[in-house]
């Protein structure tokens, strides 16, 4: 595997998060009925960061997390290990749910998360926020809020944290 190349630094991530927070408020004309749900595990820090950024704009939204391992379509094909406990302590019925993940790739995780969240109730709408959209979708899923579009090849790896976004090529 080659040396990871940094695509976004910590400041870039912070600015992207702030912009996405504004976009979420703008799209939903405020924060009434909006709730963020981070996808375990990569999306949880981003959901927290978006929640804090929305706070700074003067709105408050509940933030939860969901582990969608038990809804994946590759159960029985590869090891699937739910590493964490879902935490959705607000009412999903009638809410506008913003699913939050670090990297959007095939879309299969998001599909599993949609199935998981709709088991908690019937949201009015579900939107998708990701820090990085790296392409290669295998399902008809598109993000509503994107930090950075990052064209990649499928053998590259993308890591997105609060400290930045790196891309490294090589075997997986």
């Amino acid at each position, binding site marked *: 595997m080659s040396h990871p190349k940094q695509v976004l630094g910590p400041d870039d991530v912070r600015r992207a998060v702030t912009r996405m927070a504004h976009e979420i408020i703008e799209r939903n004309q405020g924060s009434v009925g909006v709730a963020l749900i981070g996808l375990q595990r990569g999306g949880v820090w981003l959901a927290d960061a978006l929640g804090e950024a929305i706070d700074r704009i003067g709105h408050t939204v509940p933030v939860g997390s969901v582990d969608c*391992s*038990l*809804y994946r379509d*590759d*159960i029985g094909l590869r090891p699937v*290990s739910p590493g964490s406990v*879902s935490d959705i302590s607000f009412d999903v019925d009638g809410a506008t749910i913003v699913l939050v993940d670090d990297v959007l790739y095939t879309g299969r995780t998001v599909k599993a998360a949609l199935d998981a969240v709709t088991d908690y109730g019937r949201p009015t709408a579900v939107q998708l926020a990701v820090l990085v959209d790296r392409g290669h979708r295998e399902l008809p899923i598109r993000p509503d809020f994107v930090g950075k579009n990052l064209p990649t090849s499928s053998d590259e*790896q993308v890591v997105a944290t609060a400290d930045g976004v790196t891309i490294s090529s090589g075997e997986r």
Partner: protein
Amino acid sequence: MKHFRSIAEAGPDAVRRLLDLADHMAEVNRRPNPKVPALRGKTVCNVFFEDSTRTRLSFETAAKRLSADTMNFSVSSSSLNKGESLRDTIETIAAMGVDAFVIRHRSTGTPWQIAQWTNASIVNAGDGWHAHPTQALLDCATIRTAFGRSDGFDGLRVAIVGDVKHSRVARSDIEAFSMLGADVTLVAPKTLLPPFTDRMPVAVTTDLDAVLSEVDVLYLLRMQTERMTEALVPDLREYTARFGLTPARVPRLADHALVMHPGPMNRGVEIAVDPAEIPGSVITQQVTNGIAVRMAVLFDLLGSGSLPEATS
């Protein structure tokens, strides 16, 4: 993991993994709709050669909450009564397409024997006096949750009281509790102790009152009168007086101490108090947690595969 037949065979890594997984399953069970599609298309067959209420229903519920299909085999209405052998019976059921057998049998080692006849995964739901590993897991999950000890049980003092000799629950609990770091003491009359306790990671005493106030967990075993072929205790009332949880003993437990029982209870024998009146009783939680740990076991056995783990 292919089979789950004993705590020792699974090992400490698997036990910890299953307990973490059980936390996840417990959250599923708290949802308004406590069902996930994880094991769609898988079939779990319960094969119980001994009577059971909670274990069989618990496994069946666990399988259903993971969306697996279930089959139930009961001996009394089976072709075993026409003289069909155990092997033919298992091979017949396996030919219908079964991904996991949940086995309870009066003979030690049956789950290992059956594993040689089928490619399906085997879960031991109790074999003879030997092992009942999902009971041990649910007991660990209950203690872990009650004390918030997901790090392990270092320093926890557990007393297992009563008919240790005939108890597969006690054997599996001793393995699991000590594996997680607890200090285990067996409290029983000598006639109800198994041989070779000196080779087990336990202390042994015949005096319940001496340890009562010091334990964090008081684990009462059922007097298994159906397994007793000889007079091992002179009288059940004397047993209760010396080893039972009586109203007089309840206040002498530490405030934080848990009282556990694997069920079914012999009221008035090992437990002479209404469990609802014992502040530290977690006997109901044990039953609830049983579903979560059995979901964890079934998912661990049937939910993985050989492809590399997904990254996104």
